[in-house]
């Protein structure tokens, strides 16, 4: 550990000297992160995959020959063909259009709820840790209490009553409402050391308002953790969306999501496997690419990472 610190210091001194002598520009933090991210092949593959999926979700419905909600009654449970690229379901719906639409839904739910979860968890986690004393004790008790009943059961209860066009917003709300608790506990643990930082103490004794300290000092310090968590949270949110919709508790017809298509494919697993395979491939590509991006970001942001190569 001491060795690497030494090298870092000497390297910094060297660069500083170089700066003065040759006028070289220093590498900014963001550039550094981008460079380190780009050096990891798996992360780049993940990013490319995700971009392709997003393009597919936006462009797919426009180039598909059928809408996701207009069944072709002359082609029920057809294998993939020139007219129906991914085949049709037993109800005659075009699987290509369904998957494009469902992918968009799953992505929207995943990203929206993951961002919302991070925001809530960051505010609650840091606030609980910052105020210490009875706020912390009561807050932790409440967080632990909220974790007693598995959140999956609670989400299922409240999204059951939601259907129709805005059903997906309800699902997002449900996943958010019970998804932030575990993260908030983790962030509180991380804040325990941040609240002892000298400038946090200084700000406190200078009479800076508590929420200003939280906003200005604590949350930015957790920045990298929060970014990584948001990215990886998308995987978790997509997985719970899929699980709920698959069980028939999430998104319901006429709207569709990848889980809903999986459910439709489950009953025709032998006679029309394409109904199952297309959304499965989309789901696996989606979650896997996001995970690769998250892992890549973690390595790129982490100052102690040994991802290889020079900065």
């Amino acid at each position, binding site marked *: 550990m001491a060795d690497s610190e030494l090298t870092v210091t000497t390297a910094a001194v060297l660069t500083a000297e170089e700066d003065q002598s040759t006028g070289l520009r220093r590498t900014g933090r963001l550039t550094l992160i981008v460079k380190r991210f780009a050096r990891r092949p798996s992360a780049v593959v993940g990013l490319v995959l995700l971009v392709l999926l997003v393009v597919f979700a936006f462009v797919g419905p426009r180039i598909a020959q059928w809408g996701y909600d207009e069944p072709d009654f002359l082609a029920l449970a057809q294998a993939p063909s020139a007219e129906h690229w991914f085949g049709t379901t037993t109800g005659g719906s075009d699987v290509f259009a369904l998957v494009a639409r469902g992918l968009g839904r799953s992505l929207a739910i995943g990203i929206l709820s993951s961002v919302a979860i991070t925001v809530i968890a960051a505010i609650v986690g840091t606030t609980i840790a910052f105020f210490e004393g009875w706020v912390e004790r009561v807050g932790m*008790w409440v967080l*632990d*209490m*909220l*974790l*007693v*009943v*598995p959140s*999956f*059961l*609670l989400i*299922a*209860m*409240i999204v*059951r*009553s939601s259907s129709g066009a805005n059903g997906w917003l309800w699902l997002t709300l449900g996943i958010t409402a019970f998804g932030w608790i575990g993260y908030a506990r983790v962030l509180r643990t991380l804040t325990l050391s941040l609240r002892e930082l000298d400038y946090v103490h200084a700000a406190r004794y200078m009479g800076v308002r508590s929420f200003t300290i939280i906003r200005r000092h604590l949350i930015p310090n957790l920045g990298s953790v929060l970014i990584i968590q948001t990215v990886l949270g998308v*995987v978790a949110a*997509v*997985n719970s969306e*899929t*699980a709920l919709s*698959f*069980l*028939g*508790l999430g998104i319901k017809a006429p709207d569709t999501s990848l*889980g809903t298509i*999986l459910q439709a*494919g*489950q009953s025709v*697993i*032998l006679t029309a*496997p394409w109904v*199952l395979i297309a959304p*499965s491939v989309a*789901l*696996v590509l989606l*979650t*896997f690419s*996001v*995970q*690769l991006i998250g*892992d890549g970001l973690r390595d790129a942001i982490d100052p102690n990472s040994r991802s290889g190569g020079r900065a």
Partner: protein
Amino acid sequence: MGTFLLRRTANYVAMLFVAVSATYLLASAFMDPRSNYLSRNPRPPMDSINASLTAANINDEDPLLLRYWRWLTDIVLHWNWGLSPDQEPVASAVATRIGASTQLVTLATVLAIVIGVGIGVYTAIRQYKWQDRVLGGFATFFLVIPTAVLALFVVIGAIYINEALGFRLFYVTGLHSYEGDSPWLWLLDFAQHLILPTIVLTIIGAVSYHLTQRTYLLDTMKADYVRTARAKGLPLNLAIRKHALRTSLIPTAVNVAFSIAAVFTGAVITETIFAINGLGRYFVTTIINNDINGATCIAAFAGVCALVGALLADVVVAWLDPRIRIS
């Protein structure tokens, strides 16, 4: 130790009470048993709808707090968890499903722990070698793949194997179908049913134990006392086994204790796909039937499991970790 456990238990009971009460109120607010009757054709007369809803204490015309009070006193005084909209007692329905869930998850949990921890140790010792990279890649893949996709592809694979063999090696639905008296044939039949869901549950569980155990062991391998052991002249393997492995198993043991909760309720998808009448599948039924009492009863059972797990985790830490003293 005794007073510590007692204090913890009291705290957990208070938590459980608040959590289950909140779940009941939440379920009452969001689930609408009346719609079960309104959607029937021909629609039953309003009076009889109201009569059956009131009999099950789920009539939305009664004030919520009154229903809550009835529900609570029934449980506390008579251990009666209420009726489903079909007037079936939910407690006995839950009790019968616990058995099926236990049969399903016991073997998978044990296998997941053994395999996961084993691979975790193996890859930690070979960090950044090709074994670690390959196994880590597989683990990431199985970590993110949705359970439904994994289980459905296991089913497809099993059906193709069955067709290729010409007879039924794997059963894809239920847990039992043998109706004779021979215990050996019963066991064989049980195994044929159990193997597919066990594969699914084992993969899901083992992957997370693998990744966490690898991280924990890598953390302890860098610790000072392991370096001291190496400096003393201990071979690497012995240093890891005697000094690093033991401490790194503590957080895993805590995870195992916590996972007892998930053991009973974590198999919702697997139970649905393999048509096993366990708690998870029953939970989906209660939600679809707007069964407020049934859903709350399952949530309460899951909560009890979670807190037993937490208590067990406290004990395990105190027992395994010499750095922690409870007095």
